[in-house]
């Protein structure tokens, strides 16, 4: 009696593996290096954040705020405008480095020295967060960043340099941060007449319990 060979032809499996690999490489986006870890709260909302033209304010567990704009051109333009407003000059190289910096959280006075550092050195230092206090006549820097990012987005989309239907603002807060920190960020946005924004969450594990998504969440007040 003829015995069949115990070894299996792996070619098909290999094909599948590389097909999947190709799929993942093409569809996925690398996770941005975050200067701070944020433990997101869970919700049952099924609304997705748009992929492009978003402005994300991350709030760490200790209340530090980090600023993130996904579009590189908007990011560069915002930096230049902020430099003018605060009389901070940036070299071309610093501006170039900034366009590659996904997220940051330092007062603008410290930004040039942060940009001079290599990515490894940046990871090593603790960033203080973007200041919001207005004591002693200081400007609310977060408010200016948000405002100028919106202005830049509007300018660049009107000249056709980028495609945007207005920048979407989202708060990415740590679940364990105390409410007053969040409140201060929301107030900063309200002062800039931004009354509609998103809260980034993760999907709650228990699926199928009631949740109908955020479509009906808009209140009419």
């Amino acid at each position, binding site marked *: 009696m003829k015995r069949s060979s115990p070894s299996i032809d792996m070619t098909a*499996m290999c094909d599948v593996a590389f097909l999947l690999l190709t799929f993942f490489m093409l569809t996925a986006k690398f996770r941005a290096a975050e200067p701070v870890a944020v433990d997101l709260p869970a919700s049952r909302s099924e609304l997705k954040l748009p992929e492009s033209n978003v402005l994300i304010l991350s709030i760490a567990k200790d209340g530090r705020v980090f600023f993130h704009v996904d579009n590189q051109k908007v990011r560069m333009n915002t930096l230049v405008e902020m430099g003018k407003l605060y009389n901070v000059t940036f070299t071309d190289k610093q501006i170039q480095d900034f366009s590659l910096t996904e997220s940051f959280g330092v007062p603008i006075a410290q930004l040039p020295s942060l940009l001079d550092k290599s990515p490894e050195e940046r990871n090593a230092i603790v960033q203080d967060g973007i200041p919001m206090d207005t004591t002693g006549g200081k400007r609310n820097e977060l408010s200016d960043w948000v405002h100028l990012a919106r202005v830049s987005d509007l300018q660049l989309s009107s000249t056709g340099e980028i495609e945007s239907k207005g920048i979407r603002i989202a708060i990415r807060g740590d679940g364990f*941060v105390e409410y007053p920190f969040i409140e201060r960020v929301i107030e900063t946005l309200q002062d800039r007449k931004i009354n*509609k924004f998103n809260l980034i969450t993760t999907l709650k594990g228990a699926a199928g319990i009631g949740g109908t998504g955020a479509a009906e969440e808009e209140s009419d007040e």
Partner: protein
Amino acid sequence: MSDIEVADKGDGKKRSKKLSTKVDMTPMVDLGFLLITFFMLATTLSKPQAMELNVPAKTDDTLDQTVVKESKALTLILASNDTLYYYIGIEEPEVGFVDFSQSKNVEPIIYDRQKAVEAQYGDKDELVVVIKAMAASKYKNLVNILDEMSITQTKRYAIGEFTEVDSMIIYDIIQEE
């Protein structure tokens, strides 16, 4: 990989054995899956989930501020350690608290209040939930309560400021605890 060869070719003469053209694919499969695993872990596949929040425009004009009738309101107060206080009415408030570590614990309160408002006004959407967060409360409590608003289909809710009046109302119940 050796295949069982059928040696019998009739004439009985031994032929020179041809080298098999088959390559063992097993290590290549291993490599493929290793890379897949790497990409799955290193990348973000799904777009982040988001909730939408609308806040009223800031105004100094008190005339613009909405006043809610006592009989339509339900006030929820987020406090420290995942505790949620609630009260109905102001003159003789009905006060209570629930453990909010399980966010669905608050649902019976909202549903009861919806029924009461529906009985009085004929429409459960007349209910206005006022959410107030104490300084010691965590952001995740706020997200959870906003989530409960969509689960209980409460159309009208607002985030208010925690005031002296609120702390006086819930003071007694904190003492009892």
